[in-house]
């Protein structure tokens, strides 16, 4: 009989098995089968996750398992797995949406030659993500963290023959690495303070004793947040995510909307017992989050590439999640993570469907009127867009309002944070509607022949649409007194509850204001963009602003000027000057010395017998002289 820990291990290892199969065995001839195999393994992992969830739901305690890993001196590290309610939520989201995206990829990559590499990487990603969320200590989490970073690199640069795409992959990996450095410092601080890096042990230490230096705790929390910044694309390390759109669209859906970028949020929620105590770092997190949300939303209003709009939208929504975390509303962050996974994945897959139907066109200026040509995609994307704008009763409404209200209630600068969050949400509504209108409504402005996508691609869209619509009912806030907040209750065993606080604006009012602003944003965008010419004429005054937004505030160029350029120049200098001359010179110096000495000594080896004998004679005389020195001559 399979016990729960075995199912847990199976859940994690099944995608790895699929990845190995696809990576090692399949020849390009088995193109379509590679996708089926990969989807099979992903789906079986989802089934395991579901089984474990049911097991947990029926009252069993969280599942743990440990295996000896390595010992270094006093540091004994076990490879530990833990499956509690937070892991359950994450696992279901990751494997469920992951399986749907695998299914979708079969259709999307049908014109590729040799997609077995793609599916191998996709499965590998799933494996690493599962490692990340099931680990019971920071180090195991970091292993999964690095693994998803690797898979992200491999998948973004999937079409590596195109140099720009390969560079995008490298950029993702390198920027992530910077965050990882911060993460590692955070782990080191953690170990120094607590002498353990297991979550339950740290939680116990923090709850029982209070002699920890608050300043040190803040520093630890800050460095872990730096790691989260890299992985979850916050300021200043978000620059890789828009470029990551160079990869196939399902990859963007899975990795950059639903799963990998949420790893940072997951990390902080996992360590919520630490972050409850670190007020200073929390302020930083909240402000960085809301600033990112605003910043990315502004950029998204002027983007023309459909995937770039969605990329910046992701950055913006992640910013909202960090806003929640910074205000100690961990449940709100996880809730929004879940709902965002659904509608963002849906949006990306819909965009993929559009791109696939238009045979590669990604510029929304050349789209339009796809409502009639691609009805399935149109309907599902309509639901997703409404969800992200926060229209009740779709899921986005509930999760976003939870966040905004906790921002208002949860910190000293709550009012400011709340207002900024509202602005970001309104902008979200604006630019998402803009995109929707330009893509699906009006008349078709392009030159290709759009067609609807096959069922393998539409089915996931449908399922995700259902999720986007109804998932919100799992986490209805208390304040509405409609149905209990199932999700919050479920996660209460792991996440510390958000403290109730009095606020100047009641929860109901906040909800109304937010929804009203969202509707306003939708209307404005709908009005202006329904006819493209109307938009251009009306917004002429805002042209300079639009120019700034469209150019992403030139952040990439700034980074290149300040960081990348000098680094490259230093590297070139080192490679061309220092390495050959100094290092090689130093290494070759003994060789050159001995070479020179041997050239000098070569004179003694003239090859002439008489020369040798002369030397011999002289040597003999010298010996004779010394042996006779004692005698009287």
């Amino acid at each position, binding site marked *: 009989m399979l016990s729960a820990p075995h199912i847990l291990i199976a859940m994690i290892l099944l995608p790895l098995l699929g990845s190995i199969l696809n990576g090692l065995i399949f020849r390009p001839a088995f193109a379509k089968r590679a996708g089926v195999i990969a989807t099979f393994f992903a789906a079986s992992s989802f089934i395991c996750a579901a089984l474990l969830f049911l097991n947990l739901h029926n009252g069993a305690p969280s599942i743990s398992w440990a295996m000896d890993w390595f010992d270094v001196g006093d540091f004994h590290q076990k490879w530990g797995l833990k499956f509690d309610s937070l892991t359950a939520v994450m696992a279901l989201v990751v494997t469920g949406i992951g399986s749907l995206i695998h299914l979708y990829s079969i259709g999307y990559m049908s014109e590729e030659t040799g997609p077995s590499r793609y599916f191998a990487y996709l499965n590998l990603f799933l494996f690493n993500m599962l490692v990340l969320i099931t680990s019971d200590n920071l180090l195991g989490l970091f292993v999964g963290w690095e693994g998803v970073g690797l898979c992200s690199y491999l998948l973004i640069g999937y079409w590596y023959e195109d140099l720009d795409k390969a560079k995008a992959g490298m950029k993702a990996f390198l920027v992530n690495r910077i965050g990882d450095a911060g993460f590692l410092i955070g782990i080191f601080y953690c170990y120094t303070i607590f002498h353990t890096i297991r979550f339950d042990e740290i939680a116990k230490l923090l709850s029982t004793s209070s002699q920890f230096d608050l300043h040190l705790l803040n520093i630890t929390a800050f460095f872990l947040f730096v790691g989260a910044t890299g992985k979850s694309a916050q300021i200043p390390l978000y620059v890789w995510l828009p470029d990551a759109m160079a990869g196939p669209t399902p990859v963007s859906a899975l990795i950059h909307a639903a799963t990998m970028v949420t790893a940072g949020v997951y990390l902080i929620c996992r360590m919520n017992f630490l972050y409850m105590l670190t007020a200073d770092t929390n302020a930083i997190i909240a402000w960085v989050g809301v600033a990112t949300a605003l910043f990315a939303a502004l950029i998204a209003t002027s983007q023309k590439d459909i995937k770039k709009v969605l990329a910046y939208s992701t950055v913006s929504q992640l910013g909202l999640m960090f806003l929640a975390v910074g205000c100690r509303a961990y449940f709100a962050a996880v809730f929004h993570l879940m709902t965002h996974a659904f509608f963002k994945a849906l949006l990306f897959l819909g965009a993929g469907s559009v791109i696939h139907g238009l045979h590669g066109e990604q510029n929304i200026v050349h789209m339009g009127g796809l409502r009639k040509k691609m009805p399935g995609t149109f309907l599902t994307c309509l639901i997703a867009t409404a969800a992200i704008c926060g229209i009740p009763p779709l899921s986005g409404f509930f999760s976003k309002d939870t966040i905004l209200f906790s921002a208002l209630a949860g910190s000293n600068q709550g009012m400011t944070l709340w207002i900024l969050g509202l602005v970001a949400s309104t902008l979200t509504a604006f630019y998402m509607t803009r995109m929707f209108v330009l893509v699906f409504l009006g008349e078709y402005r392009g030159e290709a022949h759009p067609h609807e996508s096959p069922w393998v691609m539409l089915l996931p869209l449908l399922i995700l649409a259902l999720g986007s619509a109804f998932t919100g009912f799992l986490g209805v806030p208390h304040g509405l007194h409609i149905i209990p907040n199932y999700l919050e209750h479920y996660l209460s065993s792991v996440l510390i509850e958000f403290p109730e606080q009095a606020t100047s604006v009641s929860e109901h009012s906040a909800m109304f204001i937010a929804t009203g602003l969202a509707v306003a944003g939708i209307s404005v965008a709908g009005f202006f963009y329904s006819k493209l010419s109307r938009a251009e004429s009306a917004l002429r005054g805002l042209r300079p602003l639009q120019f700034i937004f469209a150019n992403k505030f030139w952040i990439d160029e700034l980074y290149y000027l300040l960081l990348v350029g000098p680094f490259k120049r230093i590297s070139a200098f080192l490679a061309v000057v220092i390495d050959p001359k100094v290092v090689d010179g130093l290494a070759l110096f003994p060789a050159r010395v001995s070479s020179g000495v041997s050239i000098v000594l070569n004179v003694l*080896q*003239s*090859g*002439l*017998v*008489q020369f040798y*004998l*002369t030397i011999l*004679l002289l040597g003999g005389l010298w010996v004779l002289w010394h042996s006779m020195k004692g005698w009287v001559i």
Partner: protein
Amino acid sequence: MKFPLSITYWSHFVSVAMFSLGLLGFLLRKNTIVVLMCIELMLNAVNLLLIETSMRTNTPEGIIMVVFVVTVAAAEVAVGLGIVLNLYRMKGTVNLDHFKSLRG
């Protein structure tokens, strides 16, 4: 017959002179065969010394040693000249300056 002491000195004189001449020729001459001859000179110088000592002290060992030296010298010259012949066949010359293949 008694020997005057002075011929001891003269023998030493000759012996050492022959030896040094042989040594110098051995180191300075370029013709291989002449070098071999100088070796003979040196050997003979030693022979003279041995005989002188042996006769002066009335011991036969010196003379016996000389017998051996002469034998070995003869054999050695024969082999040496055989080698010289081979060298001549290889290079066409017996000039020692041309045999430098072990150089370096």
